[in-house]
């Protein structure tokens, strides 16, 4: 870290300062220079944080060694003895498969929860503003009751009530062939599921999506030119649907993609470690150089005059240093590169296997509920779409709980739309429903969306309480996995990665909608 230019700000390098006029000023001692102090403090804090982490990690390392606990990820490929209550695989053969099935359960719960909580939340919010006194009071009672009782308590109340009140799945329950079956083991109904030909069909739909993009652009242009409503979105959706339908017939045509993926997997297998190392280093250096060059050009005036404070120079130096550290890590940590290569190879290997099916395979199939009798106790089999009591209680709890918060957001958003808007709409003769749909809601949505996005994030995180009612979500299965294998740290790392990616995805989606809303406003 250079400190050559800390004497005074008048000597910014790269400037054409008329130095003749500036009398030599006394050199500022380092410990009194604000810029130096600022950066020394920051680097000091960084050092403290890093050394504290190092201290804790080494401490944990010693303790783990002393207790013979490993921290590697090999449990993902080792057999485990776990049974999931429900999901894509109830008897997974490896730890990785178990966690994957649990993740799918969490995702199902989250997606279903978000959809139903939104619908219920909007109803609650509108009811809070109803003309009807009784409806208004019920809605506010709903909100005040649900959000002042801990979610976990609600969840457990639903769970105990359902297990106690629903009919038991008796010992004599034989094969069933109905549409819906409810018992204290869960709720089961027929399901449509993905079959072997699905991935080939998905390629057709993907092509359809690309085509739909162009169709939408085309229709949009027509609408912009003629002014008539050309409904571009509908056309785009129609295109996708058309491709989907055609795909049901023509999908075996894409069998050759399997060979392509196989070739890529072989190529990745043969690549030396140096390739990802070089790639990572190039990315690190590339990011740093673009950041620095953008930074410099931002600080350059139209006349090409560069004005950088000492602080800016420190920032540039720090960025360069960080990129060098990253390059060092990429080069020295060979495990990272081979992991990238291996997982890339595995990914394409899996894709190859997915396309390696008989040409007549259907993309979709349907099945109806059944009952299996493992050991003594009857249970629902894999054929139906089954929701266990645990799943149901978590689902109802998060939907009801979140609906109270979303309802308040909806109410606040609608109240934020000024009264004048409603009166103006009434004045031009719009009906109550029309006002709500065309005037109030579009404007209120801009206010409602950001806090509701936060509620979606909370909902996804709240599904983790499923561990309390024994529903096999990622936290429950992860706990079982580390109890069996002792790999606490890796499992916690997987949890964090999973939830952070969920949060990131929701943020990106909601922000995308938000930006679109702001555009509509203009």
């Amino acid at each position, binding site marked *: 870290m250079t400190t050559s230019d*800390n*004497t*005074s*700000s*008048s000597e*910014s390098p790269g*400037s054409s*300062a*008329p130095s003749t*006029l*500036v*009398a030599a*000023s006394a050199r*500022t*001692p380092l410990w*009194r*220079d*604000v*810029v*130096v*102090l600022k950066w020394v403090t920051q680097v000091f804090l960084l050092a403290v944080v890093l050394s504290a982490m190092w201290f804790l990690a080494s401490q944990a390392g010693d303790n783990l060694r002393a207790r013979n606990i490993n921290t590697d990820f090999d449990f993902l490929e080792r057999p485990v003895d776990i049974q999931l209550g429900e999901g894509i695989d109830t008897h997974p053969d490896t730890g990785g498969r178990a966690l994957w099935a649990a993740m799918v359960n969490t995702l199902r719960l989250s997606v279903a929860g978000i959809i139903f909580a939104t619908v219920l939340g909007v109803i609650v919010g509108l009811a809070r503003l109803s003309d009807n006194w009784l409806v208004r009071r019920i809605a506010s009672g709903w909100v005040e009751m649900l959000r002042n009782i801990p979610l976990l308590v609600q969840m457990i109340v639903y769970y105990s009530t359902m297990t106690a009140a629903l009919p038991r799945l008796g010992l004599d329950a034989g094969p069933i062939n109905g549409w819906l079956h409810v018992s204290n083991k869960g709720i089961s109904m027929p399901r449509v599921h993905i079959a072997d030909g699905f991935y080939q069909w998905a390629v057709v739909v993907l092509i359809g999506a690309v085509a739909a993009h162009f169709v939408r652009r085309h229709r949009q242009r027509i609408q912009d030119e003629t002014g008539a409503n050309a409904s571009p979105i509908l056309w785009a959706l129609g295109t996708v649907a058309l491709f989907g339908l055609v795909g049901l017939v023509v999908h075996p045509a894409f069998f050759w993609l399997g060979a392509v993926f196989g070739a890529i997997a072989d190529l990745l297998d043969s690549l030396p470690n140096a390739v990802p190392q070089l790639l990572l280093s190039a990315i690190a250096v590339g990011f740093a150089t673009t950041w620095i060059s953008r930074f410099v050009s*931002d*600080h*350059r*005036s*139209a006349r090409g*005059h560069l*004005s950088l*404070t*000492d602080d800016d120079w420190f920032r540039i130096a720090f960025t360069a240093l960080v990129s060098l550290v990253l390059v060092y890590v990429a080069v020295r940590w060979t495990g990272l590169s081979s992991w990238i290569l291996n997982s890339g190879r595995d990914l394409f290997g899996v894709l190859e296997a997915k396309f390696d099916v008989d040409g007549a395979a259907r993309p979709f199939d349907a099945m109806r509920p059944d009952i299996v009798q493992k050991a003594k106790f009857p249970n629902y089999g894999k054929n139906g779409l089954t929701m266990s009591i645990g799943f149901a209680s978590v689902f109802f709890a998060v939907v009801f709980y979140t609906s109270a918060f979303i309802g308040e957001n909806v109410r606040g958003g609608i109240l934020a739309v000024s009264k004048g808007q409603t009166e103006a709409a009434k004045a031009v003769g719009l009906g109550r429903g029309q006002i709500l749909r065309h005037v109030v809601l579009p404007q209120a949505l801009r206010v409602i969306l950001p806090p509701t996005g936060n509620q979606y994030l909370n909902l996804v995180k709240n599904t983790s309480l499923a561990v309390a009612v024994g529903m096999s979500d990622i936290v429950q299965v992860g706990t079982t996995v580390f109890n069996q294998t002792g790999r606490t740290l890796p499992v916690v790392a997987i949890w964090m990665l999973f939830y952070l990616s969920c949060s990131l995805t929701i943020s990106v989606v909601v922000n995308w909608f938000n930006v679109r809303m702001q555009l509509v406003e203009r």
Partner: protein
Amino acid sequence: MTDATPAEPTAGQIRDLSRGRDMIVCEDVSKWYGDFQALDKVSATIKEQEVVVVLGPSGSGKSTWIRCINRLEIHQEGRIVVDDVELTNDLRNIEKVRSEVGMVFQQFNLFPHLNILDNVSLAPIWVRKKPRAEAESQAMALLERVGIPEQAQKYPGQLSGGQQQRVAIARALAMEPRIMLFDEPTSALDPEMIKEVLDVIKTLALSGMTMMVVTHEMGFAKEVADRLIFMEGGQIVEENTTELFFSNPTEDRTKLFLSQIL
């Protein structure tokens, strides 16, 4: 306070400023905001006890300049020397200059969570390290000097704009500065309150305080200033004694400005 007798000639004319010390020296001060050059080689010297009024259209860089002198903004080229202390990255110099230069803002910027007495005495207690009792009696004396001792226990939100600005002046004076900077002190005030604030500033000028005032009040400038500086586009366009500035401006841009404003 001492020679507060209303005098026909301006303060500068009865005082001989030529032999005074240089209080503020600016040499080729330049500053950019990204592409935009806010100050372009501004050079000026302000003597002890001198009162300088800075004029100019909005966006001409006069506020930026005055804020650079207190290092609320950091200049990028040139030198600023305040009372023989150069403004650099040196922590000690910055502290010294800030405690010697008082500043009054357009928006008053009183601390809304403190009462008037605490607003004035806070900095003397914690920056000047004065005992509380002494700081508070000094604060009361200053409030008396700006004419609102009875408001000492109220909060800024309960005061009118003019009263707030007078408190802001008292707050700056509590640090016993040798230089006062005024950044459009009357621009945010209702017309009927401008006079009470200008009167306070006038008395202060007559007491011999070195002052730089950015203002649009021409009458005030004529009456109080020793010297006027006209800025435009980040540059000093014209600099002259008050009498000559108004009676015989040399630059065309100054003439245009004066014709628009008078």
